[in-house]
Each structure stands twice: as C-alpha cells, then as structure tokens.
C-alpha cells in the first residue's frame, strides 16, 4: 500500500466526524483538498523543492489522529515553564492542534485584536476567516497543503485591526502531548490589517517521548504598511517530524521579518513562501539550525518579487555535527517589471564532522533589468588553526569547538531585534552546544 492511501481512507471513513468537529469555513475546502491530494500524492525527490527530504517515508507509519477532539488532561500552565523569563509576553498554548481556551493571559490585548482558536474564529467571524483561509496555501499546488487542508480541524487565528500596534509579544507555545504516536494537523492564520504591528513568538515543544508527525500551514496576510516580526523556535525531540508550510503575502510598504530557529528536532522541513505584492515591501528571513545525531533540517524558501521597489534579505546559518543532514534551498524570483528590486541571499554552514552533510542551493531568477541582487553560500569545517590557538591558551578542545560553533551561529542570533529573546537564545544555543539540551528545556516533563 502506498503512503497516501491510509490518509485518503482515513478521510473517506471519517468525513462526517471531521466536519462535525470543525468549522464551516474549514470544511468548505475539504472536498477539493481531497481531490488534489489524491491526484498529487506525496512529492518524490524528483520534485525540485522536495529534493532533500523524503516525504513519503515520513508519512508512511500509521500515526493516530485525534479526529474526535478528545481533550488531553493537562494544564499547560502547570506543565510548561516559560523559556524566556525576561520577556513579558501574552502567553497562549496550543495543545497539539487545539487552542487552550480554559485560561487566557490576564494582560488584555488592545481593543479589536483577536488571538483565539481558528475554529472559534470561523464561527464568530466567518467573513474574516473565509476571506483568508486557504487563499495562499493552495491545495492544487502542494500535496502537504492538500493533506493538511483535508484533515485540519482547528488551529490558531491572530488578527490585528487597522492601525493597531500590539506592544506586548504574543507568544504561542505549541505543545505536543500524547501517550501514543500522534499526527497533528495544525492551521494558523495571521491577519494584519493596514498599519497594524505585532510580534509573534511560536515555540514548538514535545512533552512526551512519542513519535509525532506535525503538518502545519501558516498563512500570513500583511496589509499595507503593516509590521510583523514572527519568530519560530523548534525545541522538540528526535522522534518529532515537522512539516511546516508558511505563506506570506505582503502589501505595499509592509515589513515582515521571519526568524526560524531549529534548536533540537528529529526531522524538519520548513517551506517559507513570501509574495511581495505591493511596492516598497520589505521581507527579512533569518534561519538558524543546530543539528547533530541523525537530525535532519531542510529549509526551503521562495521569495517572489512580483512588483518593483521591494527588498528581501535572507541569512541562514547551519551548524551540523555528528551524522546530521541539512539542506537550504532558497529561490528568489524577480519578475518582469519588478524594477529596483534589492535582494540578498546568504547561506553559511559549518560541518563539524566529516560525516555531517549539508546541501546548499541558493537560486536567483531575474526577469527585470534594473535590480541589485546577490546570492551566495559557503560550507566550511572547523578552523584548525583557531582551535590550536585556543588550546595553546589552555582552552580544552571541546570548549574550543563549542566557542567556534557558538561564534558561527552568533551572527544570526544577533539579527534578532528583541533583546530578551536574543539573550535567551544565546543561552539556549550555548546549552545546546554543551549537550545540556538533549530534549527540550521548556517543559517540566522533560526534566
């Protein structure tokens, strides 16, 4: 039996159950998603953007899916200790794919701002959700979009109305919790209207030592002159498989900065697809990866400069140890007429062992004639001279290697504009390199 069949069967057999435990706006796209998934099947490595990760293999095992929406008996506020103590955030939890509604942060959000369950949002503001849901993550062009749209029942909705600036960081902790292997299909919708400002911090943790498979689709709508910083921090374990597709649409003069750090994981594939639809928009993508053991991290990006006068920057740095594999493929597309585009793309990688593998593929495709674009990548090893210099000063080989790795990753950590988070991440990365972060440091259950 091929890997797809069990998901098609699951959907066919449980169609009514899935619908009943979701919302109309989400159910509306299922039939098409099913047809698209049946037609597309899982992408093979022959599909360029899936070249570096074997999707079908990851989806082959039979995971449980919580279609009945059985609640897990856990209070995340008790189970989870905030990892960023000096950062005052509005803290929310997602338990698997369900928004934790029982206790909400006491600090109120500005009037009109909504942070809630996507299912609830689809019931309370159907027009807002219907206008956006599935508009960017088209099911016809990507099998994972189709699979997620077919099965997802809930997720997160963030809405910031016109002209409103949310001062306090909105932190959402995604907790994976299950006594048996579990597949989680999470859906996130972020809508910033004209002139809105927000900072989001998504942290992924796994509370149980189980096999998890997560598909996540994030759709971000950044209105004219809106400002968004979105941080994603994955700190799960080696049995987690994460497939995340993020789609961003940016209107005129909007500024979106996306930061993605993989601190600890099993297998991760992050697709980031940014469309610059309005002139003067700016997008910044920063990625930091630390991998060892047999971890696998694949970041795949597309920045589509549809119109002129937009700016895009990408900086991804990987530190690969043991037998880990990393991949970065970043495609910048400057379309015909997108004049005065400024684009930089850089991927730098450190392979600390001869067995670690890094695949780097920066791509630049330009159909306009008045642009300033650069792209480059490097893969290097530990600097033996620097190691010896440090050892001569009395620093042990392990410590010297740690200092070099930390220095290498430092550049991308320094790009974080939020000081408390930057300091915290430095601390976490150092702990990670010292081997003190073998699972995740956030939840008590892992202690």
């Amino acid at each position, binding site marked *: 039996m091929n890997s797809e069949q069990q998901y098609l069967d699951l959907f066919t057999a449980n169609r009514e159950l899935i619908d009943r435990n979701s919302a109309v706006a989400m159910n509306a796209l299922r039939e098409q998603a099913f047809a698209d998934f049946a037609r597309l099947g899982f992408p093979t490595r022959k599909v360029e953007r899936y070249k570096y990760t074997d999707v079908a293999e990851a989806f082959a095992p039979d995971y449980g899916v919580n279609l009945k929406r059985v609640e897990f008996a856990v209070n995340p506020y008790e189970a989870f200790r905030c990892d960023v103590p000096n950062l005052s955030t509005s803290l929310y939890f997602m338990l698997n794919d369900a928004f934790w509604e029982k206790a909400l942060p006491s600090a109120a959000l500005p009037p009109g701002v909504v942070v809630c369950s996507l299912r609830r949002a689809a019931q309370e503001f159907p027009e807002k959700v219907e206008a956006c849901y599935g508009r960017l993550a088209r099911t016809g062009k990507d099998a994972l979009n189709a699979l997620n749209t077919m099965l997802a029942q809930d997720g997160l909705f963030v809405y910031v109305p016109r002209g409103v600036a949310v001062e306090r960081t909105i932190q959402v902790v995604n907790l994976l919790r299950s006594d048996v292997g579990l597949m989680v299909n999470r859906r996130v919708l972020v809508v910033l209207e004209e002139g809105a400002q927000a900072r989001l911090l998504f942290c992924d943790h796994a509370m149980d030592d189980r096999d998890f498979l997560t598909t996540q689709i994030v759709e971000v709508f950044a209105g004219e002159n809106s400002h968004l910083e979105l941080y994603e921090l994955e700190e799960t374990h080696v049995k987690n498989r994460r497939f995340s597709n993020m789609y961003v649409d940016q209107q005129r003069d909007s500024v979106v900065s996306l930061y993605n750090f993989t601190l600890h994981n099993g297998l991760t594939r992050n697709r980031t697809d940014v469309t610059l639809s309005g002139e003067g928009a700016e997008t910044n993508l920063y990625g930091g990866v630390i991998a060892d053991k047999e971890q696998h991290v694949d970041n795949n990006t597309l920045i589509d400069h549809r119109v002129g006068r937009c700016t895009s920057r990408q900086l991804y740095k990987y530190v690969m140890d043991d037998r880990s594999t990393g991949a970065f493929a970043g495609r910048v597309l400057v379309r015909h007429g997108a004049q005065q585009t400024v684009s930089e793309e850089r991927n730098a990688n450190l392979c600390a062992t001869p067995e670690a593998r890094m695949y780097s593929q920066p791509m630049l495709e330009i159909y306009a004639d008045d642009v300033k674009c650069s792209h480059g990548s490097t893969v290097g090893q530990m600097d033996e001279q620097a190691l010896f210099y440090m050892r001569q000063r*009395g620093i042990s080989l392990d410590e010297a290697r740690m200092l*070099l790795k930390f220095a290498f990753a430092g550049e991308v950590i320094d790009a974080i504009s939020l000081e408390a988070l930057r300091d915290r991440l430095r601390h976490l990365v150092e702990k990670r390199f010292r081997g003190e972060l073998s699972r995740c440091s956030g939840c008590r259950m892992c202690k």
Partner: protein
Amino acid sequence: MLEIRDLHASINGKEILKGIDLTVKPGEIHALMGQNGAGKSTLSNVLVGNPAYEVTRGSVTFNGKDLLALKPEERAHEGLFLSFQQPVEIPGVSMVNFMRAAVNAKRKYQGLEPMGAGDFLKMMREKRKIVELDSKLANRSVNEGFSGGEKKRNEIFQMAMLEPKLSILDETDSGLDVDALRIVAEGFNKLRTPETSALVITHYQRLLDYLRPDVVHVLMAGRIVKTGGPELATEIEQRGFDWIKAETEAV
C-alpha cells in the same frame, strides 16, 4: 625548567628538527636565532604541541613532567605560553569570552573556582595597561581587524593574563614599528620574575637590546650549532650567519 634532549621532529614527513639539546633554567632568557627555514618556529610549535608536527625522537621535560605526553591545553596549564608569529583571527569570539575561558580552564586545572565576573574584568583592565591596549578590546573578536602591532600587543596581554612560567616569543618583533616594539618589549619586561623564563626567537638585535638574554643559540638545519652570551647576537647583527655556517661546515 625546560630540558630538551635529542629532539627530532617532522612535518608532512619532512624532518625539520634533527637533534636539539637545550636547557633553560628558571629566570633565564634564551634567544634563538637563525636563518629562515632553520627550524626555529618548528621548535616552538613542537614545544606547545601543535598537532601538525610529529616528534620522531627525543624527550622534553618541563618542570619535571614529560611535556610531550601532555595535550596542548595541559601544557598551557603547566605554564607554557607561545606568543604566535601569526596570531590567529577568530571571528565571533570576543576577547573577553576567550580570555575568561582560558583563565577559568587554568583555574579548574589548579583546583580553583572560576573567577567572578567583576574580578575578571578588573584583571582585564589592569593587564591591558601593560601593553597599552584599547578599552574597546574586550568586546572585539579575537585578533579580528587588529593591526599587526595590536596583534602582537594582544599576545603579550594574553601572556600577562595567564602568567606563564615559560614564554616562547616567536618573532614577536616582526612587523613592529619602533614604538610598538618598545611597548611590547617593556610590557614583557614588566612581567618578568626571578622564576619565569623565556625562549625568544628573533632575527634582530633590537628586541634583544630590550630583553637582555642570558644565552644566545644559533639554529641551523635543525640543530643548535653555536651557543654563546649576549655578545653573539651583536656579532650576528654585524656579520650575519655565513661565518657560523662556514665554521660549522669546517667541523
């Protein structure tokens, strides 16, 4: 303090050192002179344990311990310091973190607690003055963007922080202007004690004018061919090495 006996060493299979015998006593300064390719830098690299070099024969005892059996970091902890001919740039590692790691590694080796942040920064400030280094030093990356003179001053600064028993100065004077040479040499002299020794590798007399070596050796083709007092350095400055070469070949 340091006893080298019949030391042979090679790099990439090529023998460079062909039987070195050298004894350095506490408080002594030995100068090591010789033409390019004589093996001076190889000797310093072998002593501090650079893994690129292979010792094929001989022994080195440092304060009673078998130096060659120790890792480079252990040799440092035992009090051996090399002022590098070409100090290495380490982008992204700040001087303060680098020095803290080095000082605390040594303290751990000695069974001491790590130094408190306040005490450590105070120590950095004091030692910095010895070689007139900038106060911005602490937050700069190790040697990155340093001028040639700053790099050499930084070597002596690190020596001041680590208080070694035996320092090897590998062409610390090369590339320095007159003022920088004076700062480096005077800085070194301030750190001298009756117990500390040094092995100074140089081509020139001018550094030795400041340091006043007790013994001068001439290294040629991997062997010490001549040993004398300070006057030998003066003679080499005037006459070059050819006469020593002729003398050696005659024997």
